[in-house]
């Protein structure tokens, strides 16, 4: 009992002396997105949410604002942005990282590595996007910051390629960066995928390659595909339950990875409107061939001696590790014929 009294007195004393001085949640601004770019120096914009004070939480409103900082290093730029407000900057719920055009061309992986290791700046599950807006355009979003965030939410809900920060910190520096186009009115739309090999930008995938890349990376919700239906012109194809199946088979002393796309064509929308079932059947073969063509164009960027964006080598090694190593040494592993793609979409 004596010990308890002592404990309680100590607690009470601590409460009276030091409990009131710590800054609380009300002194924080909540970071919702980080924009980084590099031109002659690093620029950091932090899109933060400030809540208008209200004891009745139900009538609280949120106001978005930008904190901007520039510096010779990423650290200094972020530091300056943080110092531009008296409140504490809270990164705990930040899930978005946007990299400007300058950073996309240089220092991308070093920056991502820094952010991943710096626990204060966010979480390794930040979704990373490349954005085509230069650093000076970003603060113009201040008034429509909430709308911008809503657009991003909608985009991810509808299905877009997602790359997370921890994926950008892999030692091999191979990655796929989803690109966004910032519209004049503040909206966003996807603008393809930039492929990085050994830390260098190697190409951009657009159109149906984006959907295929999403399937290859294991995401199962893909946006509508823009394909060509021959004479019919461009069509928009919505797939239902698209799935990739993988089979690594030994063939004549080597291994071949067969990737098969299956699923159902649920809707096809062309210039003349929605295609009926018979019309969909007629163009099905063309759609399948086109998907195979798209894959063939992607393959060299996806699978090479020093890059393996979709971990196909693991599939070879799981089948026969020794043979895979032998093929790698002989240089035959990365031949285009080693990975065969076939599309077997059906109509609903």
């Amino acid at each position: 009992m004596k010990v308890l009294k002592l404990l309680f007195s100590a607690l009470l004393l601590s409460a009276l002396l030091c409990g009131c001085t710590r800054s609380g949640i009300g002194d924080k601004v909540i970071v919702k997105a980080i924009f980084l770019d590099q031109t002659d120096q690093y620029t950091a914009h932090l899109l933060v949410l400030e809540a208008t004070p209200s004891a009745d939480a139900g009538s609280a409103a949120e106001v978005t604002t930008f904190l901007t900082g520039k510096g010779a290093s990423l650290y200094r730029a972020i530091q300056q942005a943080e110092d531009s407000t008296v409140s504490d900057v809270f990164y705990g719920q930040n899930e978005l990282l946007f990299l400007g055009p300058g950073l996309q061309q240089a220092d991308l992986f070093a920056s991502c590595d820094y952010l991943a290791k710096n626990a204060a700046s966010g979480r390794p599950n930040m979704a990373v996007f490349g954005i085509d807006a230069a650093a000076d355009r970003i603060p113009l979003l201040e008034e429509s910051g909430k709308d911008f965030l809503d657009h991003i939410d909608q985009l991810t809900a509808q299905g877009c390629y997602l790359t997370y920060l921890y994926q950008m910190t892999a030692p091999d520096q191979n990655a796929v960066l989803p690109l966004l186009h910032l519209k004049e009115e503040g909206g966003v739309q996807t603008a393809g995928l930039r492929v990085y090999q050994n830390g260098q930008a190697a190409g951009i995938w657009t159109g149906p390659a984006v959907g295929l890349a999403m399937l290859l990376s294991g995401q199962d919700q893909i946006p509508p595909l823009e394909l060509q239906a021959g004479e019919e012109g461009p069509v928009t194809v919505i797939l239902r339950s698209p799935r990739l199946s993988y089979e690594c088979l030994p063939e004549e002393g080597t291994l071949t990875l067969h990737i098969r796309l299956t699923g159902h064509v649920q809707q096809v929308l062309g210039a003349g409107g929605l295609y009926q079932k018979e019309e969909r059947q007629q163009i099905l073969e063309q759609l399948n061939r086109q998907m195979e063509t798209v894959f063939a164009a992607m393959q060299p960027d996806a699978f090479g001696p020093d890059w393996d964006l979709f971990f196909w080598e693991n599939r070879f090694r799981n089948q026969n590790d020794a043979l895979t190593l032998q093929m790698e040494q002989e240089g035959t592993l990365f031949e285009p014929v080693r990975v065969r793609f076939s599309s077997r979409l059906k109509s609903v």
Partner: protein
Amino acid sequence: MKTPLHPVLQQNIDQLKQMFGNSIDLYAKPVQVLGIDCCLCMFEGLSTIERLWVVLLNMLCDSTFQPKDGQDLFRYIQAQTDLPVENNPVTDFDQLRTQLTAGTTVMLIDGCRKAVVLSTQNMQFRSVQEPSGEGNVRGSHEGFTDLLRINVSLVRRLIRSETLTSEILVCGQRTKTEVALLYDRTLASPQLVQAVRKRLELVPLPVLFDSSYLAPFLQRGSFSFFEEVGYTERPVTACAKICEGKLVILVNGSPYAMVLPYFFSEHFQSLDDYSTKAYFASFIRILKYGAFFMAVLLPGLFVSIAEYTPELFPPQLLYKIAAAETATPLPLFLEMILVIVLLELIREAGLRLPKAIGHSVSLVAAVIVGDAAVKAGILSTPIVIAAALTTISMFVIPSLYEPATVLRILFVFVGGLFGPFGILGLLFIMLASICGMHSFGLPYTTPLVPWGGGAVRDGLLRAPWSTLAQKPFDVSELPGGKIEYD
């Protein structure tokens, strides 16, 4: 040393009056019964004069017996009449005091060292009613009263087996309160019974008005937030505990029966559990466990999360809490303490006030605390909601209200001052405290920890009656410890 009765009537009367300080309610009427000088003694209000006179007059009219002396009269009344006399006559002033305060009439007889005890009790007491707490939908709605003998009879009425044993002891040096110890002698451990009886006999209480006074002397070990004994107002519950091999202690003047040994999981059991379907009873039990931990941990966790780890809040909630905290003058954890203390004041006021104005208190509290304080920016809605949720959760397990209230405040303190690690430290201490307790030799957390079959049978969940009936629960079969008493 007990003072025996004198053979001289007047000496007995004088000593009796002196013993009770010439109290105004002591009725001592000298009479002649069949020619022998006697004195009828009783306390007004405890015994009825009308009944006494009818009983005695009847005998006087019909009897033709002529006693030679007082002892002859005593023998005649004690053994040869159909008067409602007690089996054991009074032979000393200690017994005289006991019988008189029990509401009987004692007839002192001149020339006899023994006195006859007539059962003429007619004391006013609260009737058997539904108790205010321990509400249930099905099952008996009777509750214990304040009178020990009535309470014992309520138990006897429900357990009609010959193995139900009741012992009477006297505790309280000033109040000499009767205490009944009830148990099933084929189920209760004899060592436990003996140990409890011994402790009851040695209880150094000056006064005893409720069964809870005995608890500190029956429990052992150092301070703990939780008690090793339980209480019930319902005879049905007491009987169920007796049938599990437990002991029930009833105290004269208290409607609360004490049950021992008592385990942590029993706080989450109720009468309705056994009347409803097993799946629903299990669901309610799990809800109660959740409610307890929510009641204890929620305020402290809320404060700790808000101050130290706000990322745990959903994004939509985070800015609302931030807005609320910015608008109010106090830090979150002091605000939480304030609201908890306010709620406790309201609860205490509601308990102590007359029922007529108790409702007004609730209304005033709801309006002032819930609405005006928020509008004035003194308190914030998230804190009020968290505190209210906590209080409502606590009402689900009223028997744990006291430890939960204090622990709740402690958790707020440590959560506000030290953050998550403070909460963890106190949680560890609380768990160690509960797990380290023994209720008369058995681990207090039985059958949950160590996990035994009883946890699914009738602990965390409740098995159907078809399973429960196959092997009735017996406290001596619980795992986890060797039964040791003293």
